[in-house]
């Protein structure tokens, strides 16, 4: 049987390499944008530190979207390609290994961004920096981002696997339009369900300052815990669909 730890390490190595590429892309884009600003848009030389940090923050989101797409492709390949589905390991362990492997990549990316921006702030003296409170906020934000990403991937995988399963029971040619209609319905219903879930789950975060009974940390932990629970439930359904119905290419 394939060793779970070794598989996770192998996948983590791949995801970390992609996170490194995304960080490189982010750094390059930010620096090029600042240089172009200085050369062509009349950006005053005294303003470049602030511009660098603002561009850095903006482009970090842009590069994170690219990273999410890369990770999404990798996740789809995990259950859609024979390379992974032929491994002598249960589908539950395969999906879990992928989930665990995505985490260091995401943490590395956002930690890299946080460190670079902090260094830029300290070096340029752009703004006052309070280490004691800022680091705690950063760690909480990174954990929240990671959990949200894992939630979105588990959700997208679930929708995809459900469509694949439904298609399996429809005639290939005659049912093409039925399949498309059904797929659209599943996507619409899923988006609606996800929207409702996010509203429901963001309640603890919305009430951070308003709730008289919950502390900030307690609200944060409850919200994160709800997402983790939902990720586990969706993963269980995904594994069931993989075991029973969904075959790779």
């Amino acid at each position, binding site marked *: *049987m394939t060793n779970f730890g070794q598989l996770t390490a*192998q996948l983590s190595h791949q995801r970390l390499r992609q996170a490194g590429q995304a960080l490189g892309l982010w750094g390059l884009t930010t620096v090029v944008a600042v240089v172009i600003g200085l050369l062509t848009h009349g950006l005053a030389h005294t303003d470049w530190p602030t511009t660098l940090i603002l561009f850095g923050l903006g482009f970090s989101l842009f590069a994170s979207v690219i990273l999410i797409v890369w990770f999404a492709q990798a996740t789809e390949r995990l259950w859609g390609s024979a390379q992974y589905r*032929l*491994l*002598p390991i249960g589908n539950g362990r395969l999906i879990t290994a992928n989930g665990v492997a995505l985490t260091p990549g995401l943490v590395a990316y956002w930690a890299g961004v946080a460190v670079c921006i902090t260094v830029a702030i300290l070096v340029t003296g752009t703004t006052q920096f309070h280490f004691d409170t800022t680091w705690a906020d950063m760690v909480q934000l990174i954990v929240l981002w990671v959990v949200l990403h894992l939630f979105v991937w588990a959700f997208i995988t679930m929708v995809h696997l459900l469509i694949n399963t439904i*298609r399996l029971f429809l005639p290939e040619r005659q049912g093409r339009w039925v399949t498309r209609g059904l797929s659209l319905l599943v996507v619409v219903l899923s988006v609606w369900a996800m929207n409702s879930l996010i509203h429901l789950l963001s309640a603890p975060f919305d009430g951070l300052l308003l709730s008289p009974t919950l502390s900030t940390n307690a609200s944060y932990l409850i919200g994160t815990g709800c997402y983790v629970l939902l990720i586990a439930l969706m993963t269980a359904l995904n594994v069931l669909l993989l075991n029973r119905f969904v075959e790779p290419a």
Partner: protein
Amino acid sequence: MTSLVDVTALTYRRNHRTILTGVDLHLAANRIVGLLGANGAGKTTLMRLLSGLAVNFKGHIAIAGATTATARKGQVAYSNALAETAPHQPVTALVDFWATCYPDFDANRFAALAGELALPLDQRLEALSKGTRMKLQVALTLAREVAVYLLDEPFDGIDSMTRKSILASIITWKPAKATILISDHHVTDIAPLLDEVIVIKDQHLIAHEATERIRAIHHQSIETYYEQFYEGGHEND
């Protein structure tokens, strides 16, 4: 005789189409078996079922006693493992993945096979020609030490010299007790290798015969024997 591959009453349907029905197949250890049939007869589907890739079937499949899909994957090496693989991966990264994730992968055996088949290990997967990619698939498959090897059209679209080198590797590197199931349209090329022949047609396994018997009792070549079943049939793959 105990069977290494045990398939009983296997039926597989997909999209309201029956692809295989009522297949019974029993293969002993240490055999090279030709899986023959027209395009779309269900050869690839049978291999996917044996390897554990296809899951939604009726009937019973056991490979070396392993019945669950996960356990079967540990007993079978299937040559289609590179389908849908990320094309930008370096070959060395793929080999590293195989070595890490398959406990039965023998790195020395792969190195010898790679040398024999002249594989360019420093290239990316997307840079390989069709024939070289096929040779890589065969090398990765044979570098595992398992009970059953499934080679799905390993000579598809490749030149005669490459075909000869792959055939030579199969003969050289087949473990003594292992059984190889090989599908191919060039029956004449693989005929000298085969111990048994299986023919699939119209969703059914219609013939399973030892090649010795075909030659001695039926007085036919493997190709002639196969051609008598060949005409007609529906596509199911």
